[in-house]
């Protein structure tokens, strides 16, 4: 077994373990942290595939930005764990059966018989000065420009949807306009009422 295979098996095992923990731990903060671990280990596997740029992006974007934001959300929301976990034990046996069938199917169908090392020739390693960032850049804005633009529209729709669903205008906004405050004159605020002095009886 070569060095690459050892690295692959170790990190795959960690990845599967972390993915399992994401859905089974009680505390959502731990679940988010295990998700970070899962992203990180898959980034390592991508590096083994010589997809360095994608691996770095995964760590930077998902671990660095998305998951940190996600952790904030999880920690700030008041999540009732009892409600979330209700029915977990009840559905566990069914879940196991489905998962087992899926695993058997996948091993039979996407196993070594179809995609084994002897079936698919391994790609020749690239030279050290090969930049896959540059290669990605070459096709992203040329061959794949149409899907790329559609992806940007999807993000735009996500922004619109998120704002449309969460923005609530206050009926009486507590907003102070400095301009109006400065312009205030004595007559606007103060009313002098002339009245007769009351005489003591």
């Amino acid at each position, binding site marked *: 077994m070569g060095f690459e295979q050892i690295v692959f098996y170790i990190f795959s095992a960690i990845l599967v373990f972390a993915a399992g923990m994401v859905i089974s731990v009680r505390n959502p903060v731990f679940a988010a942290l295990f998700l970070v671990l899962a992203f990180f280990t898959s980034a390592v596997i991508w590096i083994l595939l010589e997809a360095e740029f994608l691996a770095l992006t995964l760590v930077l974007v998902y671990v660095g930005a998305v998951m940190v934001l996600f952790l904030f959300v999880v920690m700030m929301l008041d999540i009732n764990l009892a409600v979330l976990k209700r029915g977990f034990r009840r559905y566990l046996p069914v879940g196991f059966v489905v998962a087992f069938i899926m695993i058997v199917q996948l091993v039979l169908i996407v196993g070594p018989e179809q*995609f084994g090392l002897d079936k698919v020739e391994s790609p020749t390693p690239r030279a050290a000065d090969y930049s896959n960032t540059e290669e990605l850049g070459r096709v992203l804005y040329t061959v794949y*420009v*149409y*899907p790329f633009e559609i992806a940007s529209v999807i993000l735009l*729709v996500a922004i*619109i*949807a998120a704002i*449309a*669903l969460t923005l609530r205008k206050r009926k009486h906004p507590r907003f102070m306009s400095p301009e109006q405050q400065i312009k205030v004159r004595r007559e606007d605020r103060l009313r002098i009422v002339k009245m007769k002095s009351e005489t003591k009886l």
Partner: protein
Amino acid sequence: MSFEMPDFTPAIPEIFILCMACFILVADLFVSDDKRVITYLMSLATLVVAAMITINLHSTETVYTFSGTYVKDAMSDVLKLFIYLITAVVFVYSRGYLSERNLFKGEFYVLGLFGVLGMMIMVSAHNFLTIYLGLELLSLCLYALVALQRDSIFASEAAMKYFVLGAIASGLLLYGMSLLYGVAGTLDITTFSNVITANNLTGGEYSTVLALGMVMVIVGIAFKLGAVPFHMWVPDIYHGAPTAVTLYIGSVPKLAAFALIMRLLVEGLGELHAQWQDILIIMAILSMGLGNIVAIAQANIKRMLAYSTISHVGFLLLGILAGTKEGYSAAMFYTIVYTIMTVGGFGMVLLLSRAGFEADKLDDYKGLNERSPWSAIMMLILMFSMAGVPPTIGFYAKFSVIEAIINVDLIWLAAIAVIFSVIGVFYYIRIIKLMYFDKPLDTSPITSTPDMRLILSLNSLAVLALGIFPGSLLAVCVAAIT
């Protein structure tokens, strides 16, 4: 590496819709609430101009651009025109309903237009990646539209269900596509189909991978269409969503879903027709059976129409599974007819609803003839058409798909289809009975805008007129499938 500038001409309608949707999004911010009708008119104008562009660019030849990720052929042009038309009708019908419920906002129209863009991308997709992205764009708009009525518990619940189930379906579709990519090593649909044929991959060790990929793709499609056994979401979402949104979800996306089947199963996996035919036969029988039988037990017209949709999807699949050119054009004809009927049916629900009253119970239709004879006649035509009674268009739609499967010697399946459609007649006729032979429970006058009445009348009369002269629409569908 040399790079050839892509030809933008075929994609001008998409580019136009995108620019206008962005423009309306920004322009809407400067429109005050009482002048919101400007946004509405701009959206309608966008659809009209897009239709004119598509008609101008129309040609029967097939054009590929953007490195083969985009295709413009006769089918895509026809489907796009119907997408504009039906969406415009949806916008007209929903105006009154939305303004009575404080939902008459720019977001409805902006999301509606982005949904149109997603459907156009699906219709013109020639690459697994583009198909998936178009589908996601459409689905995202639909999830947001369902949730737009934030104060309604039903709408929020429906949106949540729709989002979770839709995400699972997208995941399955994507996994299926990745397996297919693993076999053929390409995402381009024509290249994919050529690789399968050239290397004879339907036999041999990759046949199982191909089959699993195909099954997952079919599951994804069936979810989006609402075919049994992947139909669970349809009644709940149709019921929970505001009727104006149900109108949109229930009608236009089916045109895009038809294109999805054509691109993925027929053009991409055409070589595996014998395998997916069996799967579609089972789904078609279950959809027709369950849809028609469960619809009888419904007391809510939105749920009833949802089950009716499921049964119509079964009929649509009949045309596809025939696997002939005739069958595909029959299925396309059925899809177009279905959208015209459904938009009319839900339009009727919108017509009878008013502020604080949804008109979604079957009992609300009692004695409609006494309240408004004209509306009752329009509803009568629509119900007869959905049931498939001649001389309405619904009859020809059912007739053409059944003819297509008889021509491929699936006579037993045709018999089952006829039996289920006879069972289905019951619940459509029940509405007619309620309208004409029962006393009205509610005698308040029907309020609606004159433009809505006009379009709804035209819609119902079109169902009748197309039924008497079905030739032109049928010819369009035959010409569109090459």
